[in-house]
C-alpha cells in the first residue's frame, strides 16, 4: 500500500452469492489484512465510489466476505459485478466486538435483517473457539422469512450448539416460526443474564427497543454492545462525516457499549 491511508488495495471478487432478494454476499480474496469480528472495511468500486461494510466472514477464513444490500450507487454496482471483477478494499477499521470481555461468559447475539452481517464473524469465531466461551444464543429477526440471511447455515450453527431463535415481522409461505419483532423472542434464551455479554446490530429503531428490553430482562448495562451505522468517507476519523459528540463512529465505534450509546447526542444515538 502506498503512502496515503485513503488508497484502497485492488482485490478480485472470488464468489458472489445471493443471500436474500436484495442482498448479495461477495467473497474477495485472498484477504489483504487480518481483523477482529465487528470491524469494517471500506470497499471501493472503481469509478463509482467507496462505502463502509462490515466484514461478515470469520477471521480464520482466507478470504473476506461482505454481505451487501442494494441501496445506492456503490451497492448497485457491486450487485452488478461478477466473479473476477476487481474492487478495492482498505481496512480493517474501527473497534470490533469485545472478545476479551467475552471469555468464559455466556453470549447473546441479537440481529435484525442485514444487521446480522457484523454478528456473523463473531458467531463463527465463537464457534471455532467454543472452549473459551460459555453458551451462545442467537436471536435473529427479519421483516419476512425470505429476508433472513445465512439461512443455509442455521442448521450447522445449531448442530454446533448455538441456541437459535428466529422471528419475522410478517410470515409468508411455510413459515412456522415466531411472528413478531425481535424483542418478542429476547426472553427465550435461558442464559446467566447478569454475566452474559450481549452483542446487537440492526436498524436504529430495532437497537433502541432491543436495548430497552434487554435491560428490562435483567441483562447488565455494562455487558450490552451494539454496532451502529453511519455515513463514512475515510474510515479513519479524518473526513468528519461520522463525528458525533467527540467520537468518531469509524474510530471509536462502530461497536459501542450501552453507556457510551446513552452519551451519544441525538442523531447517532438510537435513543
Amino acid at each position, binding site marked *: 500500500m502506498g503512502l496515503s491511508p485513503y488508497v484502497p488495495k485492488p482485490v478480485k471478487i472470488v464468489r458472489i452469492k445471493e443471500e436474500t432478494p436484495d442482498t448479495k454476499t461477495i467473497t474477495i480474496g485472498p484477504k489483504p489484512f487480518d481483523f477482529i469480528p465487528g470491524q469494517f472495511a471500506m470497499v471501493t*468500486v472503481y*469509478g*463509482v465510489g467507496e462505502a463502509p461494510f462490515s466484514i461478515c466472514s470469520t477471521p480464520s477464513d482466507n478470504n473476506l466476505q461482505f454481505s451487501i444490500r442494494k441501496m445506492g450507487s456503490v451497492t448497485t*454496482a457491486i450487485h*452488478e*459485478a*461478477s466473479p473476477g*471483477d476487481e474492487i478495492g478494499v482498505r481496512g480493517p477499521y474501527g473497534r470490533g466486538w469485545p472478545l476479551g470481555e467475552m471469555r468464559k461468559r455466556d453470549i447473546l447475539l441479537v440481529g435484525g435483517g442485514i444487521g446480522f452481517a457484523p454478528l456473523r464473524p463473531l458467531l463463527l469465531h465463537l464457534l471455532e473457539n467454543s472452549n473459551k466461551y460459555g453458551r451462545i444464543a442467537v436471536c435473529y429477526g427479519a421483516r419476512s422469512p425470505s429476508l433472513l440471511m445465512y439461512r443455509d447455515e442455521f442448521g450447522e450453527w445449531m448442530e454446533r450448539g448455538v441456541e437459535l431463535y428466529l422471528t419475522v415481522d410478517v410470515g409468508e409461505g411455510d413459515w412456522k416460526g415466531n411472528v413478531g419483532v425481535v424483542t418478542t423472542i429476547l426472553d427465550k434464551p435461558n442464559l446467566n443474564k447478569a454475566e452474559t455479554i450481549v452483542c446487537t446490530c440492526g436498524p436504529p429503531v430495532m437497537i433502541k427497543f432491543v436495548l430497552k428490553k434487554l435491560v428490562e430482562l435483567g441483562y447488565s448495562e455494562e455487558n450490552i454492545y451494539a454496532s451502529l451505522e453511519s455515513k463514512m468517507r475515510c474510515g479513519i476519523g479524518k473526513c468528519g462525516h461520522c463525528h458525533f459528540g467527540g467520537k468518531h463512529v469509524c474510530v471509536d465505534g462502530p461497536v459501542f457499549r450501552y453507556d457510551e450509546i446513552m452519551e451519544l447526542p441525538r442523531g447517532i444515538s438510537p435513543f
Partner: protein
Amino acid sequence: MRRVTVLLCTCGSTLLEKIDFNKVSKELYKNPLVKKIEIVDGLCKANTVKSLSLDANERIIAAACSSRLLEAVLKNLSNAKVIEFVNIREQCAWVCDDKEDASSKTIRLLNGSINRAVRSNPPQYSDGLKIVREAMVIGGGIAGVRCALDIANAGYRVYLIEKEPSIGGIMAQLDKTFPTLDCSICIEGPLLSEAGRNKNITIIPNSEVVGVKGRVGDFRVLVKVNPTYVDPEKCNGCGECANVCPVYQPNKYDVDLKPVKAIYCPFAQAVPLKYVINKEYCIECGLCMSVCTRAAINLEDKPKMLELNVGAIVVAVGSDLFDPRLKPEYHYGEYDNVITNMEFERIICASGPTGGVLLRKDGKPAKRVAFIQCVGSRESGPGIGECSYYCCAASMKEARLILEHDKDAKVFIFYNELRAFGKGWEDLLYRRCLEDGIVFIRSRPSEIKRSPNGNLIVVYEDTLTGKRSELEVDMVVLALGFKPSENLAKLAATLGVSVDDQGFIEEAHSKAKPLETRVRGIYVAGTCHGPRDIVESAVEGSAAAALVISLFRSGNVKLPETAVVLESKCTGCGRCMPVCQYDAIVRDGEKVRVLESLCNGCGACISSCPQEAIVLGDWGIEQLALQISGMLGD
C-alpha cells in the same frame, strides 16, 4: 460492474482499407469500461451474430453501418441488455478520405457510445398493452355510418354516437347527389337501415361525448344521452301521438320549412325510426301519453350518462354550413327569396315542403334563379379561407334539377373559378349545364337588391368582361361554404385532439397520417377535418375503419417512448407545459403529469425542466453529457 462489448464490423472487409481496425481496438482497449472487442466481417449476417455467443446481460456497441439497416437484425438476434449503434461506415469510412481521420473519428464516436451504453438502463418491455376490441364512431353521417358498417362487418362492436335523433347527417337532407343526380336518400337510406340492423352496431342517438380518459386500446368514454321522452324500446313508430299533438314546431330536417308536431319522427327513413319529443315546444298536455298504447312516453325523462370502454375512436361529426347572415350584402333572412342551398335541396325535393315544386315564399314559381358561389369560403372575412370543395358541383347539380323540373326556367351561376375536378363532374355536370343553357357568370356579386315586385336584383361585375351589370331574378340560392361545427372545438378539447387554424380537426400528418389525430387511437373521417364531398367522406369512413381494424388485429399496441414525470422531484413550476407542442402535460394537483396518449416523446419537456424531474428513456442529460465527454476526451 457495467462494462461493454464492442463489435467492430469490417463490412465484409471493405472497411479495412478505410479504417485502421488495429489502432481502433488498441485505443479502445485502454478504456476501462471495455470488456472485450470483437472484429467481425458482417454484423448484418445472422450467422455472425449467433457465432458471437453473447451473454444475455451484455451491453453491446455495434459499430457498423447505419442503424436503420442494422437495428432490426441485431435486436432480433441478440438478447443483449443494451445495444448502442455507431455508424462507422456512412459516418466515418465513407466520408473521410484519410484513413487516419476516419480511424480517430471512429475511436471518438465509440468512446462516446461506450460511456453512453454503460449508463443506459435496459428498456422496460411491457407485456403489451390491453386492447379493447370495440370501437366508437362519433357522428352518424355518411362517413360515420360507412365507417361503423365496415368495422362491424369485420366482427367488432361499434358504438355509433349521434347527436340528432336519427343518423343520416347532411346527406339524408339532400335531394339528389352529383354528378349522377341519384336520389340521395335512396343511396343512404339502405346504409342507414343496414347500420340499424347490424347486431354489431349500437346506435346511441341524442347523445354526445363529454369525457375521455385512457389511451389507445383502452379509452373510457363518457357519453351523455339526452332524453327523447319516448322510450325507444317501447315505441313502434305508429304515429298516433303525433296525430293528437296540438303543437307544431319547425322541422330541422326540412331546414325549418315544413312544420311538424312537437312529438315527431325526424324523417321517413330515420334510423332509429322512433318518435321523439322536442321539449322546447312541448306544452306537456299529456295527449300523446293518453293515446300511446305502449306507454312509451315519459315526460320526466332525464339525461343519462354512459361509460363506454373502447379501443379506438373515429371522429366523424361532420361540419356546419356558413351562416349567410354574416354577409349582409346578400340580405339573407331579410329578403324572402334569398335562400341557402340546403333550403333549396328541401324545396326541390319531392318530400319537401312544396312537394318538389320550386316555389317562392309568396307562392309564385321561381322561373329565374341565380346561384351565388363561394358564400363564406375563399375570401378573407367571416367564413373560412379555403374552397369548400363541394359547392361548384352542388350548384350545377341544383341548376340542372331546376331545369329538370321546369324546362323554361332560366338559371344563372355566379362563380369565381369553376372547379369540376371529380369523376364525371366535367361531363355529367358542367358540359350538360352548358348544353342546357345555364348561364355561367364569373363574378362574386357585390349586392342583392329587392325590386318593388318582390324580385331580386343581383348587382355584379363580370370579371371576364369587366362590365358592371344587374340581373333580375326570382330567387337567389347561396352556395354556402363549410365551417367547423359549433361544438367541434369543445369535442376536440374533450378528446385531446388538436384543431387547425380554420378550426377543423388537425391530422397527425397531412400526408403520412391523413386520418390519424395527434392522439393515438383517435381517427378522423369526413368533413370534420376539412371540406369534402360525399364520396370522399365515405372513402374516409372506410379508410378509418381499416385503421381501426388493423389496430384491433395487431395484437398489442406499442407506444413510443413517452416522457415520465418523477413525482418526488417535480415542483409543479410548469415550465415544461408551454414547450409541449402536443399539450401532453397537464397539472395534477401540485405537480404535473404527462398524458401518455398525447406524448410523442420529442423530449422538449425534459430539456426545459431545471432539475430533470421529467425523464424520457435514456435521453437524460447525464447520458448525453457522458457521451460527449467520451467523444471529446483526449
